[in-house]
């Protein structure tokens, strides 16, 4: 059994038009400030790649919602991709899986 990661790695590729935030690890209450600091403000085209996220709690979900609403308000486009099972479970429990702009697996 591999021990799940206990921190969050954030990599950001950003230019004037696009922003791609790749997350790996835990997106919980403790990690949210670092995540928001890196992901804000959204660009005209933003992709949140959650392929490495093993755990998300309600604070992490709230942070995602905050980014999505900011983008909507600014008329920008934001998409969440590569949602893993545990993240999807949290989204489903809270009814957010359908409400958030999640790109469905092909």
């Amino acid at each position, binding site marked *: 059994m591999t021990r799940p990661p206990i921190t969050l790695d954030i990599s950001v590729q950003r230019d004037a038009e696009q922003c791609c935030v790749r997350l790996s690890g835990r997106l919980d209450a403790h990690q949210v400030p670092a995540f928001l600091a890196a992901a804000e403000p959204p660009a005209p085209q933003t992709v949140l790649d959650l392929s490495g996220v093993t*755990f998300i*709690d*309600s604070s992490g979900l709230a942070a995602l919602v905050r980014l999505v*609403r900011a983008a909507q308000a600014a008329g920008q486009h934001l998409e969440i991709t590569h949602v893993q099972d545990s993240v999807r479970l949290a989204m489903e*429990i809270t009814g957010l899986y359908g409400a958030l702009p999640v790109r469905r697996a092909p």
Partner: protein
Amino acid sequence: MTLTDDAAVTELLEQVADLSDHLVFLQRLIPQALALTDEAQATALVREAAALISTPGAALQVGGVWHGDTPGWLRALERPAAPVVLPRGSVHTGAPYTAAWRLTAVLAVPLEDGWLALWGKREFMAVERNLIGTLAQLLDAALRALRQRREAVQYEMQARDRQRAHAVWRAVTPAQLRPPEGYHLTLRSQPASDFGGDFQFQEGEWLVVGDVSGKGLPAAIITAMFASAFTVAARSSDLLSKLSEALYGHLEQSGKFCTLVALQLRPNGQVRVMNVGHPPVLLRRADGTLKEIRASAPPLGTFPLEHVTEELVVLHPGDALLLYSDGLFEAEDARGVPFGLDRTRRLAAESGPETFIERAVSALTPYTVTDDLTLLVLQRDPAVPSVQLHLTGDLARLPEIGAALRTVLAEEHPALMAAELALTELVVNAVRHGQARHLTLRVHQAGAEVLATLTDDGQAFDPRQVAAGTAGELREHGYGLLIVQRCAREWQYARVNHLNRQTLSLGAPAPLSSSPCP
């Protein structure tokens, strides 16, 4: 030799002959008297003596009852204090007792427990009186022995009855119980006499221990009634009402009452505890901390059962419930100082569930236990994998929750993700909103679910009272409680000793019908 001398010699010879007859009679009498089996035989001996001294009437009274054909006039006479001859003419033997008036002397001799009378002669001579006096002494000895033999037989029958009754009582109130699934059970049931008023019954998930007021046979009768009422009541989820319905009237009529604790023990460690007038149940956590579950209603049979507060507890592996009857803390030492409840509590905290009974019994050595004594320990199987985690207010330690869960749950366990999610929410909640700085999480696996207890030292706060947000709404807060609600099959909150305590049964949430992408 003169005529008078001749007459005197003749009389003397007659007397010698009589004495010889008497002697023969007495020789025969002794073995007969010793073998006496009833009053009729004694009466026969009195009649035989009467015949020997040539008087037709003889009767015997023992214990206020006359034996033989006793004329009415005799029944009207009082037992004499000492042997006496009532001279002829002094006793009225005519109407209304008999048609004819006959002159007769009456020889009356008292016995220890009655008297005997002989009549029908004009007088009773000294030798005759002596013979009857000796007969009376023999009869006294014989009747005394008869009484003792009868008492012995009766005592033996009673003892046999008691023995049989004891066997029935023990069958109804077993000294052994079967451990409920998932628990270890130790019981010591020690009645004060052959019968006890303490009882313990078991049916399905239910286990009831109780104590009928008083002790001995009267209490045991009520106990037996309780046993049959319990069998029926245990089929109902409303056990106590059913018991009360069946027993209240009987208890009230007999001026008795009954204290009891009813436990419904689920294999996963969830226990419903109801205490009706019984001494406090001690909930002993694996780390030795104690909680008392006190009575929430007066004993059954005192006042109509109105409301019983039901305590829901989760026993994690190693936790135990300790039950005892008042025979324990009311035991007194030589100076009359009772064992006491404080000492009971100390004993429970200091000794583990495995040794509680043993140590209680040895601590009782200098005490006199006068009442029934029942000690029962129910321990949640300590072999079930469980984990305990201490956390501080530092949210950087949140990952430890998942790590702890993975020590008792396989990665593919259906409740793992839900449990980590829900428990993380509760910890964050307690730290952020309750300013909790010391939190303890205890978790064990129970089939497809996870049972968890979280205690924290934050401000008193029952998160169940907060309305969780609606699912599917885009909000920037309020998802945490929604997550807990969706993952918790059961969720209890209590404020105990300045700590918030939540116990949850957590499992994979049912899928929510998610609305399509907008």
